């Protein structure tokens, strides 16, 4: 397939804002409408103008061409729609070229499939411990009491930081992600707190590095030089962003789906061995991570559309998972789906570093819910974060269930 042609079609204008209430309240419908619009990418005039890429094949071509679609971010050429609420690049997601792999290598032993398998017993213990705190009550805010604290505590433990401070970190991370468009001052304040607290962690480690992710970042050398303080902060900030928000979001979306689909829930309860395959199907169907951005580096025609150097683009990976030209019945959850080449973790050089942990955490949390709260039902209002543009997730998810023993 030719991704770039010489002659452009008329610009495909779309009425679309991923930060809008409409996107938050009717995300699947909005995505369906985009796919029905007849072009795999479209230009929106919101936020000073940007491209949304949602079609499966266009997404594949975009991520494979990191020279055309740059991941670089800086104060001079900021990335994001609207721009990210920080100036220095996060490492390695805001970097182009061969250094991406060099930077990933620093923490690979923790984030490889082997690293995720090694973490599974700890993830299971955390899940059991958290469910123990509410199972006798017969009700819980499953988002606040399990889905949010488990990944947050795990990433803090991996970094070697105090896991008991998870709720403070979570508030800042949520503000940095979910308030950055509507309340940029609050997001900015959260980023200042995040930077200050990471800097304090650096200070604590001077002279005694631990056997943990943060120790490996501080020990890393490139041509003999360690990361600068700004790079350390950027790396740690990214690990917190990736670690604290997205797996909770995925699992919350799936709990909501299972509440609406009792036959699907029963299928999983009857056959727990279907969980690994189900994990991939839920990743395709319910991934929350929409807000991945690129900047176009040169004028070219891409899938029929004239791109210009400096144009900003959002790669809506979860939307590619719902593309009817690639997936049969994309809006249905089909646990027997084969050839499920979803893009929930992105593709190419920037494939989600935490994807192996995310899979294990999701599988363990869902397994714990189905085993110990099998008759859960959503009661009251599932409250989504007001801005779903970057991470489409619930903040509060009150459930009731038959109380059980700790």
């Amino acid at each position, binding site marked *: 397939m030719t991704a770039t042609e010489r002659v452009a079609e008329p610009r495909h204008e779309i009425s679309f804002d991923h930060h809008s209430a409409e996107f938050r309240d009717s995300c699947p419908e909005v995505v369906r409408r985009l796919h029905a619009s007849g072009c795999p990418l479209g230009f929106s005039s919101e936020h000073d103008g940007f491209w949304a890429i949602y079609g499966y094949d266009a997404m594949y071509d975009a991520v494979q061409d990191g020279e055309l679609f740059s991941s670089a971010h800086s104060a001079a050429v900021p990335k994001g729609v609207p721009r990210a609420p920080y100036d220095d690049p996060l490492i390695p997601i805001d970097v182009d070229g061969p250094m991406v792999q060099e930077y*990933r290598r620093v923490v*690979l032993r923790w984030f*490889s499939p082997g690293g995720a398998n090694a973490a599974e017993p700890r993830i299971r213990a955390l899940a059991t411990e958290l469910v123990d705190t509410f199972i006798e009550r017969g009700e819980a805010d499953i988002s606040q009491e399990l889905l949010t604290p488990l990944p947050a505590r795990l990433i803090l433990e991996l970094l070697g930081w105090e896991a008991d401070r998870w709720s403070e970190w979570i508030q800042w991370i949520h503000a940095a992600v979910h308030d950055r468009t509507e309340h940029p001052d609050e997001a900015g304040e959260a980023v200042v707190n995040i930077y200050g607290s990471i800097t304090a962690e650096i200070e604590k480690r001077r002279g005694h590095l631990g056997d943990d992710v943060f120790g490996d970042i501080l020990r890393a050398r490139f041509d003999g030089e360690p990361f600068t303080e700004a790079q350390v902060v950027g790396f740690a900030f990214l690990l917190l962003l990736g670690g604290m928000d997205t797996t909770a979001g995925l699992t919350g979306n799936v709990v909501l789906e299972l509440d609406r689909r009792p036959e699907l829930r029963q299928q999983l309860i009857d056959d727990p061995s279907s969980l690994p395959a189900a994990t*991939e199907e839920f990743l395709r169907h319910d991934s929350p991570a929409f807000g991945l951005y690129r900047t176009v580096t040169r004028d070219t025609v891409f899938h029929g559309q004239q791109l210009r150097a400096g144009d900003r683009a959002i790669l809506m990976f979860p939307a590619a998972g719902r593309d009817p030209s690639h997936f049969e019945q994309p809006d249905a959850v089909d646990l027997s789906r*084969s*050839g499920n080449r979803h893009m929930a973790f992105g*593709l*190419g050089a920037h494939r989600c570093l935490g994807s192996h942990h995310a899979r294990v955490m999701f599988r363990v949390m869902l397994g714990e819910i189905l085993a110990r709260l099998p008759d859960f039902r959503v009661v009251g209002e599932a409250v989504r974060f007001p801005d779903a543009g970057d991470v489409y997730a619930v903040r509060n998810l009150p459930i009731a269930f038959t109380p059980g023993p700790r």
Partner: protein
Amino acid sequence: MKVSIDATRCRGHALCLGRAPEAFEFLDLEDRSVVRDGAEALVSEDDFLAAARECPERAIVVDLDGADGGTDP
């Protein structure tokens, strides 16, 4: 049959190991999968093709006419 993984395309999703664990090995510190030595003799064509269909990077190449054997590409 000859199966190989294009190392320039593989990005370490590790989904091939989920589909055919006896066919592939994951190199944790290189962030990529490789075909196990001699796997073509032990793993069915269907399993290889299924694994290739799961790979989102389209990095697995199954050459049905290729010579038997298990050299690591």
